[in-house]
């Protein structure tokens, strides 16, 4: 078996994954997305890989490369359709809503005035998120109309095209933490709680991780959420709503896990590699290439 690790920046996570690959004696090559070139008519040897594990920091680079690998029938974790569904919060929300997976109430507008109307209809406070972005960046809790008008003007004036989609979500009065469940296919590997005095609890923003026991009900919710976006190696972010229970907030397709190994006691990188190997063994190249050409 030959495993390809697609990467941009090599972080602690990529180092840990490489260690697990080497520990299992799996042949592998690193594929730097920044330096690779692809010919869509000629595989140029890229089809020699039995599986690709995507660990690109850039969602754009990831979908670009993975779609090309799939064109040549190479199994990829995660698939391009999954990356597309997870890297755009609107796409994620639509998939979850389609499959009746509990998620915060969400409204969308593409004009400033209509966005203000959506915010007023949602009520204060509410949350404004960019549809593309991670690590808790550029989230805004909109507490009143003055804040709404200012934030919308700033996004419309200063933001890129992606900021012209105004994604408005209800503010969930959660208990100063959120939850994350790491999934490998239908299996919940482990869970963490990320606590913070701030309403944004990403560890990138200072949130502290501790173990969270994933019960059967939570696993079933995460299994359904994972399937809604196509499944794979995913991190499901959950909010604890006092009235409605667990809500799926976001789904991450290239999760970071360095701070989650110790509190959970789970060898997350090892389990990821095991899943990637199983995917390689189960895949049929004709089906993968055929799926892309349609």
């Amino acid at each position: 078996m030959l495993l390809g690790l697609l990467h941009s920046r090599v972080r602690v996570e990529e180092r840990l994954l490489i260690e697990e690959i080497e520990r299992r004696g799996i042949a592998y090559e690193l594929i730097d997305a920044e330096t690779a070139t692809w010919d869509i008519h000629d595989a140029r040897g890229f089809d020699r890989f039995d599986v690709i594990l995507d660990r690109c920091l850039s969602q754009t680079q990831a979908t670009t490369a993975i779609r090309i690998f799939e064109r040549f029938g190479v199994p990829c974790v995660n698939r391009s359709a999954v990356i597309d569904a997870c890297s755009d919060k609107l796409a994620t929300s639509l998939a979850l809503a389609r499959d009746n997976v509990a998620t915060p109430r969400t409204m969308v507008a593409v004009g400033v005035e209509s966005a203000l109307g959506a915010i007023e209809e949602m009520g204060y406070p509410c949350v404004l998120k960019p549809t593309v972005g991670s690590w808790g960046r550029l989230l805004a809790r909109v507490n009143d109309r003055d804040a709404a008008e200012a934030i919308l003007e700033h996004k419309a004036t200063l933001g890129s095209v992606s900021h012209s989609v105004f994604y408005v979500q209800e503010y969930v009065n959660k208990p100063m933490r959120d939850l994350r469940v790491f999934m490998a296919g239908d299996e919940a590997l482990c869970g963490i709680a990320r606590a913070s005095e701030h309403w944004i609890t990403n560890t990138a923003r200072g949130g502290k991780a501790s173990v969270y026991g994933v019960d059967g009900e939570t696993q079933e919710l995460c299994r359904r959420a994972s399937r809604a976006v196509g499944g794979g190696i995913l991190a499901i972010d959950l909010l604890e709503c006092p009235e409605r229970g667990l809500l799926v907030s976001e789904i991450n397709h290239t999760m970071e896990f360095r701070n989650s190994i110790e509190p959970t006691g789970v060898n997350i990188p090892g389990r990821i590699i095991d899943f990637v190997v199983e995917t390689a063994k189960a895949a049929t190249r004709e089906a993968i290439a055929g799926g892309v050409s349609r």
Partner: protein
Amino acid sequence: METAVMSAACPECAAEVSFARRPIAGEVCRCSQCSAELEVTSVVPLTLEVAPEVREDWGE
């Protein structure tokens, strides 16, 4: 046996940046002198450049 140490100059302040184990191209480190975030852009020869700023589509 001594552990081999590779090092290169920080492009910001010229201080020596050392690696206790062989770095991988794309790896990120921080200069202990000026705190600049650096990326290994080449292993042979070992070359460091200031790491690019976080881009809009970066993340999990």
